[in-house]
């Protein structure tokens, strides 16, 4: 993603506590068990099992998931649009090795 910083995205993930629902490979605590493990997120075809895994959609999804997928457990998160792009960039660094 142009002009997005994965490292900043990781900081956002830590700050807002995404890990309280998801497992991230490089965050050792918490390792939330409610949402999907995001260890190989970059290799996934769909977001939330429904939406194509595209950068623009992902950024929108992490900011306001219910708007994109009504009924999802994932709530809207208190982050800015710029931060959502960073987060998306970070998520695309997560690949199964």
């Amino acid at each position, binding site marked *: 993603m142009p002009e997005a910083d994965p*490292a900043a995205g*990781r*900081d956002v993930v*830590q*700050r*807002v*506590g*995404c890990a*309280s*629902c998801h497992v991230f490979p490089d965050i050792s605590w*918490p*390792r*939330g*068990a*409610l*949402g999907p493990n995001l260890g190989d997120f970059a290799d996934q075809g769909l977001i939330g099992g429904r939406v194509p895994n595209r950068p623009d959609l992902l950024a929108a999804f992490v900011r306001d998931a*219910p708007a994109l997928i009504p*009924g*999802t*457990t*994932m*709530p*809207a*998160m*208190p982050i800015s649009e710029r931060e959502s792009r960073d987060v998306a960039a970070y998520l695309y660094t997560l690949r199964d090795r």
Partner: protein
Amino acid sequence: MWPRISTPSGIVEGLAGWPPPVLDPAGPYAGSVAALSWALIALAAGIFLIVLAALWIALRGRERLRARLGGERAIWIGGVVFPVVVLTALLIWGLTLTRNLSEPAGGPELRMRVSGEMWWWRVSYLDGNGRAFMQDANELHIPVGRTIAIELVSPDVIHSFWVPQLSGKLDMVPGRRNLIRIQADRPGTYAGICAEYCGGPHALMGFLVVAHAPDDYARWLAARRAPRAAPPDRQSARGAALFVSAGCAACHRIAGTPANGQAGPDLTHVGSRRTLGAGILPNNRGTMIGWIGNSQAIKPGNRMPPYTVLPGEDLQALAAYLEAQR
């Protein structure tokens, strides 16, 4: 790994490592101890250097100096006379300070009660008669410039109440009632933590003290006491119903509703808290859902069971409802 370590995570505001909180007091009770600490550090450093110098002389020094050190007289001076003089002075200082710290600073004190429980803090605001007029958890709001006398109790095991910037620590011992005084002289958020090992997730038992300027405090208190509105939207209303039907109310209380459980933290004002899980997570809808859904993955061993069976919409509704409890 290194570059990431110093990244401020900002999970909880009010946590600062530098300057060290013990030496960066925000009120009189911690202040006099910080002064003592600096004096002790300087004294210890001075004596340590003297001993090192003596050792240097003993091993490498000139004959004449070594002869001075090498006798019983040196032992009497260095090992008896000097320590006795220094220690007598220290003892008197320590005793005087202990007395001053265990007495009221003057002026009317506010009273609170904090109960350390496995592994969170039950907070009660007390009126003039010692009765609780407001319940909360894991967060203490105080006005600056006032002394707060806090009763410390515990219903289960021993915990210890420690806000380094506001005062030293004091244990919460089952069957006893201890009294600690704190005072903040500048507004801010001060981190506290349990300092006595209490099993399981003892490491994750933090809390915050939020000091307001007097006017802000009055406003805050008035807002807290204002009548509570009904759930603002459909989602929250659904959450309110779920709170009772899903069993949350068996352990949690929300004032003005049928929910009156006493086992877990009071959730009357949970939406306004800065943290979840006793000072460990930021408070937003996402973390709230994560916590309700499976807090065991976040704080293993805590007393709240996982609710993975609840569908996403229910979790959303509960979180929305709780977010509105301000």
